[in-house]
């Protein structure tokens, strides 16, 4: 309900927080060598994932549970005049109905610095799909039938979904105060205008990217149950703690009375980092009926109401000297927030991807009558990369410098937008070099042009991710008398393999097998604080806390063993689930320690140490794509791909590779097919299904795919050496494809996605087939 802070400029301030009280400020030294961490360990929960036995929120069924269905505005902009529930109330199985006229409707919603902008059920509907009522009934079909029987009379208002038009003063107003909730934000350094005057080469263009929808396979949804005034919620969420905080605030409950769990969850990509209305509605209906209520969105609802990657219009002007050093970047970024304010653009790449003394970035976000944008895998970054990395490509051509070379000349070693602090490590140059080598870049560039109507082309793009993660996370580790270990962390495993990586870290530190570790996770009632699993922070924020908790356990068990075996503790160490005594061949298994059996458990608490204050730890990437463009049909196919990633230590090559595959696949969708289409006059969604909103399938992924890890052996970022991966794996992908298309057909495709129609018309206007 609050705009998600994870991706706002304030989030960067979060990074410099001191960490939790009692945080271990003497962090563990990085491992010298590892055996379990870094190994291809299959997921510890794989059996449940392949067996259909993993229980997702969608699968939960409780005794007496009712089903909730939400009634939504069919209009993009309207005022509810009257709601009649008489017929619906009399229908079979119906237990409760709430509408804009119920007291619960007033729960404040979308809180901003200036207070609430709306409420749970708001008679003023600002987009197609905004909530106006909800029903709880015994079965889902009954609830759906009753929802359809509710009669709502609307007065329709003029709507606007085109964000360029919405920014004009005479546009229909989404909110009374207008469609520009805050003035554009300008960030600058140096003297941009003066630098352009002296440059050897300047390029300038305007780029457009389309609005993308997250479409996780599991739609958003919750199950709510009350027990003696306490609320328990199962939610398909990336962040149980954020949902708990939001629920406590919305329902005016003490935080201690709200418990949120996210067992298995079917994907989020940023759209499930915050509290959703459906969760509050489930809780309200459950309170009214005294029964558990499940409220899960349909696919159609989820396409309208739970976030998107906003469309951007980016004008970028870049200048360089003859030697290829960047002199100036001037960027203007405009994006569509939807019906409520949220940051819709990010100019971070313009500020920090390359060394450049003169930069000016202007960022603005416009309100339109559409669902509110949410964080979407590297919010703002793929859009910015689409523009900046195509501009760099164009600049390279103008200067006659190879695009890889041009980038290498401008690799930064310090973070220019964070007071010039040095990076703990920067593998950007290595990503470019090793990626180019693996791709056989030089040879691929000079291959003779094909005479057929299928043209091949290659492209490169670089990227980085500018969020270093919250410094706060707590983990509890418990060692049991049989030598098995329980790790307790609030982090959700959103499909990245978090639980498996935690188990590897624990196993490494305590010298036990991975299958001796059990992970208890993502339940605010039983597990410890962790930030939301998003922003590429899960591994780098939580694994140091896992390690620290297990190190504490190790210390305690060694102390127990020293006393029991009458040895100096400094002569003892752990290996293969046993105590090793220096100078002796015998080992003592944990399970054989009488003192451990008597203690029943040894508990260690781990806190994450704060981020280093003198360094900035961020991940980098360089991607290389080869495409085939059919100049007759305009179809583009990605046929070969190399992704080089500097994400610090590779904790598990199997899950690491999978993240990279996923990031590249999303980039292919961004570049070639994904596009939310709204009907201008009505403001309604026209691409309201997966048939009309096309995401990549198994046919679209290039099987000539290689990933290259550039591990700079970062000793300073944190005690496990990992930087983020999820976002940097997708940031440069679409831009690399666009550059490859340019190489193939000699046309600069400024608009994403590059549809067959756009390719054909680009070719038609200026020749070369």
């Amino acid at each position, binding site marked *: 309900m609050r705009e998600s802070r994870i991706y706002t400029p304030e989030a960067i301030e979060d990074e410099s927080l001191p960490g939790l009280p009692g945080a271990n400020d003497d962090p563990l030294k990085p491992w010298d060598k590892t055996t379990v961490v870094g190994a291809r360990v299959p997921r510890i929960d794989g059996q449940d994932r*392949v067996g259909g036995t993993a229980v997702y929120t969608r699968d939960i069924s409780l005794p007496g549970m009712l089903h909730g269905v939400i009634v939504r505005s069919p209009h993009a902009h309207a005022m509810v005049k009257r709601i009649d529930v008489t017929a619906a109330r009399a229908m079979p199985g119906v237990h409760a109905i709430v509408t804009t006229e119920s007291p619960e409707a007033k729960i404040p919603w979308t809180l901003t610095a200036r207070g609430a902008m709306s409420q749970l059920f708001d008679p003023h509907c600002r987009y197609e799909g905004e909530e106006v009522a909800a029903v709880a009934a015994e079965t889902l079909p009954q609830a759906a039938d009753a929802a359809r029987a509710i009669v709502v009379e609307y007065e329709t208002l003029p709507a606007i979904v085109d964000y360029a038009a919405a920014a004009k003063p005479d546009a229909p107003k989404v909110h009374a105060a207008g469609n520009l909730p805050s003035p554009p934000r300008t960030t600058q350094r140096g003297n941009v205008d003066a630098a352009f005057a002296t440059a050897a080469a300047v390029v300038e263009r305007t780029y457009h990217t389309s609005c993308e929808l997250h479409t996780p396979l599991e739609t958003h949804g919750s199950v709510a149950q009350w027990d003696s005034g306490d609320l328990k919620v199962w939610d398909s969420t990336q962040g149980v703690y954020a949902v708990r905080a939001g629920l406590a605030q919305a329902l005016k409950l003490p935080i201690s009375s709200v418990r949120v769990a996210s067992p298995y969850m079917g994907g989020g990509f940023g759209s499930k980092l915050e509290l959703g209305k459906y969760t509050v509605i489930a809780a309200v209906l459950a309170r009214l009926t005294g029964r558990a209520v499940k409220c899960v969105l349909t696919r159609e609802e989820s396409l309208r109401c739970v976030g998107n990657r906003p469309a951007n219009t980016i004008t970028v002007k870049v200048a360089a000297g003859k030697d290829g050093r960047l002199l100036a970047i001037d960027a203007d970024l405009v994006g569509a927030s939807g019906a409520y304010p949220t940051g819709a653009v990010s100019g971070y790449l313009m500020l920090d991807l390359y060394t450049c003394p003169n930069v000016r970035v202007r960022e603005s976000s416009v309100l339109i009558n559409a669902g509110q944008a949410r964080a979407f895998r590297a919010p703002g970054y793929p859009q910015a990369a689409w523009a900046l990395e195509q501009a760099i490509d164009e600049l390279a051509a103008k200067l006659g410098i190879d695009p890889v070379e041009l980038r290498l000349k401008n690799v930064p070693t310090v973070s220019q937008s964070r007071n010039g602090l040095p990076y703990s490590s920067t593998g950007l140059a290595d990503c470019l070099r090793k990626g180019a080598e693996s791709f056989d870049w030089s040879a691929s560039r000079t291959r003779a042009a094909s005479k057929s109507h299928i043209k091949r082309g290659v492209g490169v793009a670089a990227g980085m991710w500018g969020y270093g993660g919250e410094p706060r996370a707590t983990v509890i580790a418990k060692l049991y008398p049989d030598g098995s270990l329980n790790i307790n962390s609030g982090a959700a495993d959103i499909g990245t393999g978090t639980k498996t990586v935690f188990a590897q870290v624990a196993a490494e530190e305590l010298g036990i097998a991975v299958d001796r570790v059990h992970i208890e996770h993502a339940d605010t009632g039983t597990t410890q604080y962790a930030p939301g699993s998003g922003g590429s922070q899960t591994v780098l924020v939580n694994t140091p806390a896992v390690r620290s908790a297990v190190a504490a356990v190790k210390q305690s068990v060694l102390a127990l063993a020293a006393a029991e075996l009458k040895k100096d503790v400094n002569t003892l160490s752990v290996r293969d689930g046993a105590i090793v005594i220096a100078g002796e061949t015998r080992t003592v298994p944990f399970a054989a320690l009488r003192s451990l059996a008597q203690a029943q458990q040894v508990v260690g608490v781990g806190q994450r140490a704060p981020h280093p204050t003198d360094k900035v730890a961020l991940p980098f990437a360089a991607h290389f794509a080869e495409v085939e463009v059919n100049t007759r049909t305009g179809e583009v196919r990605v046929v070969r791909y190399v992704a080089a990633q500097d994400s610090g230590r590779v904790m598990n090559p*199997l899950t690491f590779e999978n993240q990279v595959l*996923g990031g590249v696949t999303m980039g292919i969708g961004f570049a070639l097919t994904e596009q939310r289409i709204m009907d201008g006059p009505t403001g309604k969604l026209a691409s309201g299904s997966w048939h009309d909103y096309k995401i990549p399938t198994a046919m679209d992924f290039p099987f000539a795919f290689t990933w290259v890890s550039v591990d700079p052996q970062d000793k300073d970022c944190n005690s496990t050496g990992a930087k983020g991966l999820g976002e940097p794996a997708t940031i440069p992908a679409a831009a690399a494809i666009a550059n490859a298309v340019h190489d193939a057909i000699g046309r600069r495709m400024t608009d994403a996605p590059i549809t067959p129609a756009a390719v054909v018309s680009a070719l038609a206007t200026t020749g070369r087939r």
Partner: protein
Amino acid sequence: MTDRKKDPRDQQPVSRRGFLTTVSTSAAAAAVVGVAAPAAAAPAPRDDTGTVAIVLRVNGRRHRLLVEPRDRLISVLRERLGLTGAKPGCERGECGACTVLLDGVTRYSCMTLAVEAQEREITTIEGLAQGEEVSALQQAFIAEDGYQCGFCTPGQVMAAEGLLRTNTSPTVDAVRAAMSGNLCRCGAYGHIVKSVQQAAAARKTGGAK
């Protein structure tokens, strides 16, 4: 050996979006899709609440059920029989998360009426494992990390099972084509295809499983 040019989808007698074709009463349509006319065509006993008594054969067990004619197979499996392995990703024939086998052929269970599935052998993801022991195909998905969030996975596994029952050594392209009706938003396709190929090899050496 497999014919490289043949689209594996051609080898499947029932279309996955079976609803559209099998609700047709035309004998020609039934002949085109290569199955007997659906049993739903025969009058089923109806009670006064509008429900119909049917028998579903799921993973080798028979279940007598009263269903509404509009009830889809996916909701009967999940809500009545507690078999939540088949996942509702869209409930309108777009994603494949709900894929099951009907007489050994992949089928979207969201696009299949429960009454249509009478007298067919229905296999769900829960029917692939023997107790705690997962099949060679499922084992391959674990070994190759053929998933991320796992929500599409039961559908992917069932689509792969359907493929491997008709084509024991599919090429990469045949696997891609056969799996193209199953969306994976996490984008694990690279690993999914590897899993299916590894499983095909394992089934050869270990015998069909």
